[in-house]
């Protein structure tokens, strides 16, 4: 399926939840959807006969200064089409429903996005830090992050 067809069927099925279809992007086209419906969309994409998007390649957090984005790179191994989904939430209330129940692989990706960006994935079974120590403070990949002077008595800056 082409991007055009996918976006049309998503718009038909979910209507209001599809916020923006950016088909004329310079490189990869993408679709922005409402955060609260990402779970339903994901489930539809995975189980629909025409979509069969069985694989979540990558899940990334992005800090857009004021809003946090979560970007889903999806691919179908049977039909060989790809799709980029995005959700956007304000930085002060970064709550996105977890899609761990749809694609298990999202578990660690979401933990990573939580760890580095502070995106709260609601419904995630085990939302702990994954890369940084459990007692680390702050979300280092946010653009306004300040490196702490000391961690556990060890000096952090050079």
């Amino acid at each position, binding site marked *: 399926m082409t991007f055009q067809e996918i976006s049309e069927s998503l718009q038909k099925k979910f209507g209001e939840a599809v916020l923006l279809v950016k088909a004329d*992007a*310079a*490189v*990869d086209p*993408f679709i922005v959807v409402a955060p609260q419906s990402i779970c339903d969309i994901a489930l539809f994409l995975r189980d629909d006969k025409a979509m069969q998007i*069985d*694989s*979540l*390649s*990558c899940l*990334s*957090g*992005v*800090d857009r200064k004021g809003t946090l984005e979560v*970007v889903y*790179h999806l*691919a179908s*191994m049977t039909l*060989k089409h790809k799709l*980029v989904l995005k959700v956007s939430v304000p930085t002060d209330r970064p709550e996105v429903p977890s899609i761990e*129940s749809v*694609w*298990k*692989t999202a*578990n*660690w990706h979401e933990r*990573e996005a939580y760890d*580095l960006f502070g995106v709260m994935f609601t419904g995630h079974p085990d939302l702990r*830090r*994954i*890369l*940084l*120590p459990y007692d680390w403070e702050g979300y*280092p*990949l946010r653009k306004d992050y300040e490196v702490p002077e000391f961690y556990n008595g060890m000096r952090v800056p050079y």
Partner: protein
Amino acid sequence: MIETHHSQPATSRGTTLRTEEMIVNMGPQHPSTHGVLRLELVVDGEIVVDVIPHLGYLHRCFEKHAEQMSNYQQVVPYVDRMDYVSSMGNEFSYVVAAEKLLKIQVPERVEYIRVIMAELQRIASHQIAIGTYGIDIGAFTPFLLLFKDRERILDLFEEVCGARLLYNYFWIGGLSHDLPPGWVEKAKAFCEYLKPNIVELNGLLTYNKIFISRTANVGVLPKQVAINYACSGPMLRGSGVDWDLRRDDPYSVYHKIDWDVCVGRGEVGTVGDCWDRNIVRVHEMEQSLRIIEQALAQLPEGDVKAALPKRIMPVASEAYGRTEAPRGELGFYIISDGTGSPYRIKARGPSFVNLSVVTEISRGAMIADLVAILGSTDIVLGEVDR
């Protein structure tokens, strides 16, 4: 919801004799965690009830560094250091993504050299994977024999770029250097040299009776689970999924070369067991040799750098480029905000994703099996933690 198969935990087998579970810490300094992974094991005697991985002991802030660089080219050395046993593979993936974003066409000679390097690197990487897997199973000698062969590949790399491990060879829009004179002959000689050694390896390790009994039917990863966990590379193909990005999402010049995708067939056990994952690596080494030989034969003359402006200014856009690295799908998601330096780079490391399935397939196994499972996933902590 896809059903995932759990091995029945040892504690619920309906026996009246219930033993106390013990929590054992494996790593970060442990001979078989392949680096600084820490596994918290809940064990009932020798049987593993649960595995809780703790990562991040090698979190080197790759993504932060990528954002701080002043242009796209400067990210390449950091990309090298992600999956440090297959630097060429990482560079390949990064330049594919970056060139997609910056809309650069590279000369055909560059593509061929990149393919040759990436495949040589794949052999070198699989040699480490199989060698260390041998150590995990208890055979020390194959490791040293494989390392000896690997040195030949490193010599070839050293000749083209001067480095043994981290090369900074693939540049955006080309390569740092052209091949030195006589290199093609040496590479051909290497292919001839390696072929009998793979046969020897099969005799010594792969088809060893003890090795088979240790790895066959152990850690079976069913097809559906593998796909749901987005496993890739030998891990996915070992489970019988015929999927290789080099063929199914083609990049570079792989479509001009004749080669096969290797898939686990359950030759000595179940499809998707540790042995299958290992044999896929062995066969991939053979296929890589095929690719290298053809690419060497087809290698066109020409320049190794595309004509580029001094400073590349992309439009504000984003691109996700992925390639088949030795461990699986290595993707780079690059966002540009219209300035000369990247706004955000996210690396999708195959080891990170492949490791997440270990908990799923090692419940109910024995401690020795866990070592075998972990070894067969072939993780590199530099890429898991980035």
